[in-house]
């Protein structure tokens, strides 16, 4: 158990391509950090630098107060679970789990005891003499976890550990990983591109894009107040509706011609991006026609309504079912409390209208 | 070229490559350099003095009609061996691919000749065609077809080709069978549904899909015929009768070891190396394409 401290980490490859562009992060003891982002955002490279599998170009990796930049992975006292599990195919489950301990010359009796305990926790006791090829995907995943926990390391590193499992198993293992981490209290850093995993597992979330950390914080905080359009668009499915608008001092004018009053916004005229999550975009009982229904997708618990708004498409997500069909014209309600504003660079604009909760941004014809 | 993971060590990698590097340097580069040097030198008959003659050895070799004949002979041998062995191997492979019962037995009984040394293969075929005591040779003569490979150059040449092909069938068979078995069943079933009969399916679907394998085998067979037939020839005809089975590789050996004309032999080696390089490059190109496909 330990703290992990990343100090302005940079990774540039030999050909000059930057993969990680100055990431700093403080991980508290026992904290579960999830690093999420699209492929190529540098999240795996970041994890591999912590593991010691990639050299650090610039910056420091500090584990438990000691800089480990130049330490071999095996000497960092951390364990890693790989996406393809990386089980040693010629060793039994027991051999896989014991290998790291044997290399560290842990006494035999203790190895046996630790493997036994880990196997019990992961319900692998019956499978100890099997080889990886004789196991199901879920069982292999457990063995990979077992190999990490027998080490009793300072931190767990997870590199997309669930992406090779089918959807049902993924949900089940996700819950198990969380429970296990809570039970052992071991610091964990978890890389994924799956935002559901990210939201559900993380104590704090790091959203990465283009080699930098766009935002770091508790999942719901990021969901409710994304710092950038990237974070806004990345978290949540379906994604937040992001609409380009022109602010003229009184109204935000969308390309479709719709103009929204943004009460109390004190800002010089200029372009901005207006965002609203599908679940916050309501239908108004008005006779106006702001948008046309293009497609209705009933999901049972709620419905996805794809709407055409001029040249743009937006999605609304009312609960239950709605009596709408393609081609219907509808009026939309824009609750001020749920509207996110971003500037031309995509950064969040602080905007706190008075009486936020009750006001709508009334469309003006 | 290699995984991203790398172990870090200053000395270890050099220790690991050291044995192979040492063997390669001493037993490959040193002789190769010697050979290259010799190809530019001329020694007098007693080996007492040598003089630098530039490309003269090469010029002599390339202007020598017997060398050019040997060149043509090697090419012809390559083409014939490839045609014989690939033709039969393809026939056997298509049959074995579709046989349900006994497939494994057939496979076993068709691959073992690969293990027979070329020199022994040559001796076997020589006995078989021996005009007086060989079953085939004797029968041919009895049937009025005059056969004596000790005297008839063309027959000796044909015999070398047959012995070499016999051994090579196994090799080609293994690759053709692997190629056939890698053709997805669905493709052939689709063709059957499209109304193509067995013969039509073979020529329109199977054969084109085997083309990469065939090209690859063609190159390998030619290289094989260039080099491995040496043992067949040396153990049987010794290049004769009248030079009718003298190939490029045989000449390198013969001019060097028997004729002691080191300059010429070395120049021939160098020319052969160029030929092998070209063939190897062609082969790698093909393999690349095969890997992409």
């Amino acid at each position, binding site marked *: 158990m330990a703290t992990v401290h990343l100090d302005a980490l940079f990774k540039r490859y030999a050909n000059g391509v930057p993969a990680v562009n100055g990431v700093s992060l403080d991980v508290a003891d026992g904290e579960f950090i999830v690093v999420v982002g699209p492929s190529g955002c540098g999240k795996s490279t970041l994890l591999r630098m912590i*593991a010691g*599998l990639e050299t650090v170009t610039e910056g420091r990796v500090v584990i438990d107060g000691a800089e480990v930049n130049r330490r071999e992975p*095996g000497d960092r006292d951390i364990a890693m679970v*790989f996406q393809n599990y990386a*089980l*040693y195919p*010629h060793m039994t489950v027991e051999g896989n789990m014991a*290998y*790291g301990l044997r290399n*560290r010359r842990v006494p035999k009796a203790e190895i046996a005891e630790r493997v036994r305990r880990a196997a019990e926790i992961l319900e692998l006791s019956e499978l100890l003499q099997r080889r990886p090829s004789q196991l199901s995907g879920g069982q292999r995943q457990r063995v990979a976890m077992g190999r990490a926990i027998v080490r009793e390391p300072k931190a767990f590193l997870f590199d997309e550990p669930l992406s090779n499992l089918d959807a049902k198993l993924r949900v089940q293992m996700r819950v198990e990983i969380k429970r296990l981490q809570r039970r052992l209290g071991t610091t964990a850093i978890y890389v994924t591109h799956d935002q559901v995993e990210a939201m559900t597992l993380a104590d704090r979330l790091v959203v990465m894009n283009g080699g930098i950390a766009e935002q770091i914080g508790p999942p719901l905080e990021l969901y409710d107040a994304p710092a950038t359009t990237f974070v806004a668009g990345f978290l949540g499915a379906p994604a937040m509706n992001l609409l380009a608008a022109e602010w003229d001092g009184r109204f935000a004018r969308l390309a479709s011609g719709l103009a929204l009053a943004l009460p109390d916004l004190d800002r010089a005229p200029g372009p901005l991006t207006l965002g609203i999550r599908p679940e916050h975009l309501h239908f108004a009982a008005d006779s106006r026609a702001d948008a046309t229904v293009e497609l209705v997708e009933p999901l049972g618990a709620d419905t996805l309504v794809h709407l055409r708004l001029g040249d743009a498409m937006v999605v609304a997500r009312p609960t239950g079912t709605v009596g709408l069909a393609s081609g219907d014209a509808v009026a939309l309600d824009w609750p001020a409390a749920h509207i996110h504003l971003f500037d031309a660079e995509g950064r969040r604009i602080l905007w706190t209208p008075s009486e936020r909760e009750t006001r709508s941004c009334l469309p003006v014809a | 070229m290699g*995984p991203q*993971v790398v*172990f870090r060590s200053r000395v*270890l*990698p050099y220790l*690991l*490559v050291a044995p*192979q*590097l040492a*063997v*390669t340097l*001493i*037993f*490959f*580069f040193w*002789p190769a350099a010697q050979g290259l040097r010799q190809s530019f030198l001329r020694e007098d008959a007693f080996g007492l003095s040598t003089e630098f003659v530039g490309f003269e050895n090469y010029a002599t070799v390339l202007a020598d009609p017997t060398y050019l004949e040997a060149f043509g002979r090697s090419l012809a041998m390559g083409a014939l061996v490839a045609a014989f062995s690939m033709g*039969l191997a393809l026939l*056997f492979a298509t*049959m074995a691919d*579709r*046989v*349900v019962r006994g497939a494994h037995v057939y496979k*076993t009984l*068709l691959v*073992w*000749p690969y*293990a*027979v*040394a*070329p*020199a*022994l293969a040559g*001796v*076997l075929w020589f*006995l*078989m065609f021996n005009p*007086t*005591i060989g079953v085939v040779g004797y029968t041919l003569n009895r049937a009025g077809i005059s056969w004596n490979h000790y005297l008839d150059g063309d027959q000796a040449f044909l015999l070398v080709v047959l012995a070499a092909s*016999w051994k090579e069938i196994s090799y080609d068979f293994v690759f053709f069978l*692997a190629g056939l078995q890698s053709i997805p069943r669905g493709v*052939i079933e689709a063709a*059957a549904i499209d109304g193509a009969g*067995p013969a039509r399916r073979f020529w329109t679907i199977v054969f084109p899909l085997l083309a990469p394998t065939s090209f690859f085998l063609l190159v390998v067979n030619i290289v094989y015929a260039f*080099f491995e037939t*040496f043992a067949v020839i*040396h153990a049987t005809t010794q290049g004769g009768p009248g030079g009718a089975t003298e190939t490029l590789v045989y000449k390198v*050996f013969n001019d060097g*070891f028997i004729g002691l004309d080191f300059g010429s032999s*070395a120049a021939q080696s160098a020319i052969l190396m160029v030929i092998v390089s070209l063939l*190897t490059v062609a082969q790698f190109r093909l393999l690349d394409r095969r890997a992409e496909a």
Partner: protein
Amino acid sequence: MVENRPFLALLRHLVLILGVALLALPVWLAFVASTQDGGEMLSGQFSLLPSGHLIENYTAVLFQGLASAGVPPVERMIFNSLTMALAISVGKIAISILSAFAIVYFRFPLRKTIFWMIFLTLMLPVEVRIVPTFQVVSDLGLLNSTAGLTLPLIASATATFLFRQFFLSVPPELAEAARMDGAGPMRFFTDILLPLSRTNIAALFVILFIYGWNQYIWPFVATTDESHYTVVMGIQRMVAVPDSEPIWNVVMATAILGMLPPVLVVLAMQRLFVKGLVDSEK
């Protein structure tokens, strides 16, 4: 395949049986000859069935050889062939697996140069560099020795390429996991890579054993002392007897004995053999 016509099935079996017979014929005739005595051989009465001198002929070649042609007992030559084949296959596998390991799992100055130097050996088979190789081996005083017989044949890149190819197909995460588990490079090599390469090593061994056993021209020039003769080259001394017909029944008994070990290896390890053959051409 798709249709099931009995006639076609029959035809296939017929073609295959003919093929098997065609491939076996030369060896069968050699075997028949090896069981005949001198008189039967030259009588011109051909038999397709073995005669009664099998044990007599084989004991003679195995333990007496053919002194008139300067050929030692076949037993001696088989021992030499075995030594050579084993030395070549074991030696080649050992040095190749180590250098392939270095080339795939390390980055070091001159790595590419060394790779290309090894690669170049593919361009010049031993048949072509035989004269200068003979001079070098002779200068080193290695004629008539196992080292001189095998080292020039070990200097080839095929096995290195096979191992390199295989190592590249091993998921890189295995090496990473081993590093996380505290294993250094050599421990990874012995604990993980070597066990994983078992099948490849075995397949390569089969191919190299045959390759080594069947070497002809190099042993022919590198051994001048008949106690170092190998069986495959020794047969040439039996056939090329000046001014007289070879003693064919003895030659054939020797040929049968000389091809038996590698053929048995192929038959016994057919699967590994096919794998080795296909892999080493990739």
